[in-house]
């Protein structure tokens, strides 16, 4: 039993349990204590990732693996979660009695995600996914007195349960036809039987459908806009970042590891999901008037691009997905941090895109930051959001998937339209009612840091980050 190899998970689990007790006994007073402890735990877990045991390989009879791929995913997840805790602290503390329990739920979700990105067995995959999902359902309906939040939670739960059912059905088929739940065993069975077996093929399709729900790829994306809109904004920021990374990395590992020999079978499915996500994410965003819904469609759109890297497969493809997700979470967290600043004079949060009108004159700094995130999400050079898109297309071109690359890149043009709309509202329109000033300095610093990373200065990261993702992806093969 190599417990050193799961040190981050141990830290987070014990920490979450202790904080739960603290929250239960101290109530609202513990809010600040719980939040900052949670941030410290997450950062501590991130530090623990650097240790040598984190490359120990298969653990616990092959249930999970400690490898570079998982470590990279966990690093991203921990950092995103830490940001999510920080931004929620100010948001909930003002008017909410259960603020202290929020960090606990985040920590539990993070433990689930840690298991997701390191799972090498279909059962541990499912357990991790459910632990994450259950915490997420509660988080979505966290302001239960708010009708929209309650609706979001319920919707997420019902559809999530359905997706879990589909995933489990797929897993049971794979288990039934291969006799094992180990990823390598499944891969061996595919190698032996090919995809001629209808049972295996069904298992593959259902498993991928369940995973597509979690990454909100079209056609399993319907929950995303509603949940993003209804959930409290810090929770939405969390949903858009950490669980996306976890689910995407899980998808990469399942596809390239367990289903690796069946690449021809899942490539068609993922090609469709990628292009459908890109185009639907771009087209459906046109009519949106709520910025959170718009960012929901933006996340669907971006998932589509990341899936192009997955379709390409191989080390280059996997590392492009990792790179994409790393930059994507910075852009999306930055955008949500800006959304958190959208408050009217009474401090009530605003979500309408029209309220951004003329922001460049009333709040030039905020407008510039949001503009940087929007151009970057659209993938317009010289902003750094261009580079991950380039990498996934590069992986696709290297595999000779020209039609996919051409179709995908045309999707960026359609998508650019609605990102431009935000810029237009902020820069071209006459100023509306100004937002309330203030907000925590830490959040401001985070916005500035995120904007700096996606600015052209981000290109200096290409070397180190590229090395990191290439090593992480290499550990899969």
């Amino acid at each position: 039993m190599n417990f050193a190899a799961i040190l981050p998970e141990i830290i987070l689990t014990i920490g979450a349990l202790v904080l739960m007790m603290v929250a239960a006994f101290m109530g609202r007073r513990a809010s600040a204590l719980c939040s900052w402890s949670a941030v410290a735990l997450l950062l501590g877990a991130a530090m623990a990732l650097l240790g040598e045991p984190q490359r120990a390989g298969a653990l616990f009879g092959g249930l999970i693996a400690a490898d570079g791929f998982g470590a990279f995913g966990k690093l991203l997840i921990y950092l995103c979660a830490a940001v999510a805790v920080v931004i929620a602290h100010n948001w909930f503390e003002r008017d909410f009695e259960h603020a202290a329990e929020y960090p606990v739920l985040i920590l539990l979700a993070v433990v689930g995600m840690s298991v997701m990105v390191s799972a090498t067995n279909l059962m541990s995959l499912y357990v991790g996914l459910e632990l994450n999902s259950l915490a997420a359902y509660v988080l979505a309906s966290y302001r239960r007195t708010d009708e929209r939040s309650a609706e979001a939670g319920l919707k997420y739960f019902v559809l999530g349960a359905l997706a879990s059912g589909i995933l489990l059905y797929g897993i049971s088929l794979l288990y039934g036809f291969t006799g094992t739940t180990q990823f390598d065993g499944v891969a061996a069975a595919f190698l032996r039987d090919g995809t001629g077996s209808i049972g295996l093929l069904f298992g593959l399709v259902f498993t991928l459908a369940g995973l597509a729900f979690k990454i909100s790829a079209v056609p399993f994306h319907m929950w995303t806009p509603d949940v993003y809109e209804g959930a409290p904004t810090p929770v939405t920021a969390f949903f858009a970042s950490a669980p996306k990374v976890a689910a995407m990395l899980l998808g990469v590992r399942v596809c390239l590891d367990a289903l690796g020999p069946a690449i021809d079978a899942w490539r068609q499915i993922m090609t469709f999901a990628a292009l459908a996500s890109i185009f639907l994410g771009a087209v459906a965003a046109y009519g949106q008037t709520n910025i959170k819904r718009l960012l929901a469609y933006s996340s669907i759109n971006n998932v589509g691009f990341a899936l192009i890297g997955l379709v390409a497969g191989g080390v280059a493809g996997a590392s492009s997905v990792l790179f994409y997700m790393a930059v994507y979470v910075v852009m999306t967290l930055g955008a949500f941090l800006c959304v958190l600043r959208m408050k009217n004079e009474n401090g009530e949060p605003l979500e309408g895109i029209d309220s951004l009108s003329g922001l460049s004159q009333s709040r030039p700094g905020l407008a510039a930051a949001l503009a940087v995130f929007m151009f970057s999400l659209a993938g317009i050079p010289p902003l750094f959001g261009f580079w991950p898109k380039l990498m996934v297309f590069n992986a696709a071109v290297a595999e000779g998937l020209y039609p996919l690359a051409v179709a995908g890149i045309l999707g960026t043009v359609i998508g650019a339209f609605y990102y431009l709309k935000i810029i237009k509202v902020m820069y071209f329109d006459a100023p509306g009612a100004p937002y309330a000033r203030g907000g925590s300095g830490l959040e401001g610093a985070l916005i500035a840091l995120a904007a700096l990373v996606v600015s052209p200065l981000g290109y200096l990261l290409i070397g180190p980050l590229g090395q990191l993702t290439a090593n992480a992806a290499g550990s899969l093969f």
Partner: protein
Amino acid sequence: MSGIPILSILVLLPLVAGIVALFQPASGARWNALITTLISLGLGIWLWATYDPNGAQWQFVENYAIGGGISWAMGIDGIALMLIMLTLFLMPICIGASWRAIEKRVPEYMAAFLLMQALMIGVFCAQDLLLFYIFFEGGLIPMYLIIGIWGGAERIKASYKFFLYTLAGSVLMLIAMLAMIYTAGTSSIPALMAYNFDPSLQWWLWLAFFASFAVKMPMWPVHTWLPDAHVQAPTAGSVILAGVLLKMGGYGFIRFSLPMFPEASAEFIPFVFVLSGIAVVVTSLIALVQHDMKKLIAYSSVAHMAFVTFGLFAFNRQGIEGALIVMLSHGLVSGALFMCVGVIYDRLHTREIARYGGLADNMPIYSLLFLLFTMASVGLPGTSGFVGEFLSLVGTYEVSSWAAVVATTGIILGAAYMLYLYWRVCYGKQVNADAAAMKDLSVRELWLLAPIAAAVLWMGIYPESFLKPMRADVGRLLERIERAKPAGDAHLTAGKPAPVQAHSTEAH
């Protein structure tokens, strides 16, 4: 070469100045922008002075690897040098033209222009395919903001159209670039210029690059973004758009399409000639019926750019050198014409041609300069327009007489619409009292237009100054495309001179 990374300085200086400008008050930002652009111009002149026309193909080379297959590779040849000079020359004039005309959000305006300058210089300096793309596409952002914030009434539609049109054209080029890097194993532009791609692959790559450059150029029928963007953009925005951004299309053809895909380029000559021929005739006719001055000049740009594509795809020295001179000349002349429109727009706030008339009476100096630029646009000998258009027509004639015939009608039609415009604005009776009351050029405006007038005459009288740095590079390009050079349709046969005696007996 000296050890100073002069090209990086030219790119980074306006970038830094632009960021500083954002935090300055309006007058500080104006002076900052003017001084920065003048220093850049000074550096540019030093660059031109130290550039060795007979030296290595690539000079002032810098190369720092960034990682991930992209490097900060800079270097220029004579063609890039001339286009950089054009950019640096026009920039202070643009800032000067906006001195009074732009009153709202001045710091952001100056920052956008300085950013634009950095990106434009970057395009001409980049020696890495991906770096080129980043600069090439990056230019969309400041221009989108310039049109959208400081533009006219229809600015929002125009800014969207500009952005999405050019983006749609360019993205396919990115895929082609990735395919090239994958095939050739390098992203260095000089290396790729010497790499021989498989002709069947060239065909696709050429089309992808053409999609981008044709939109940027712009060629008929993908020119429709241009009139909107020009009309709505503020004066200085139009100058930069016509003066430099359109040149990126021609530069792209010279730098990428011709040397990297010679066979495909030769194969597509008829296609390019047909599109250019239509552009010359159709857009000239459209220009003839415009009521809006800026729109008229915008359409004339499309027609003039067709001379560039004619010349470039002629595959001979006259054609290519002519195309280059047309690019430089058009950059100066169309910029100056937009400034001329701006001068009277600032006074009367309309671009309607019918609202003016008889300006020669009350604005003699203005009318004189406007006449000079009109003549240069028409291609009067002695002005820059003549040199370029003549050379490019000579080149075209060697390849296809019919194409030359069609192209030459452009000169006639060009004279028609430009003189018609000039006649309506400057001659005739003064029917509009407010137009008749306008004051002549101010000292500032004179200082903006006079340098362009001098450059136009210089290029018309002694084009050698401008051709000299580019000659060796055109020679290298010709060497490269020689193997794909098409046979012209002019078959010269030696005549049989009659014997002298027969001649003399007949006379008696």
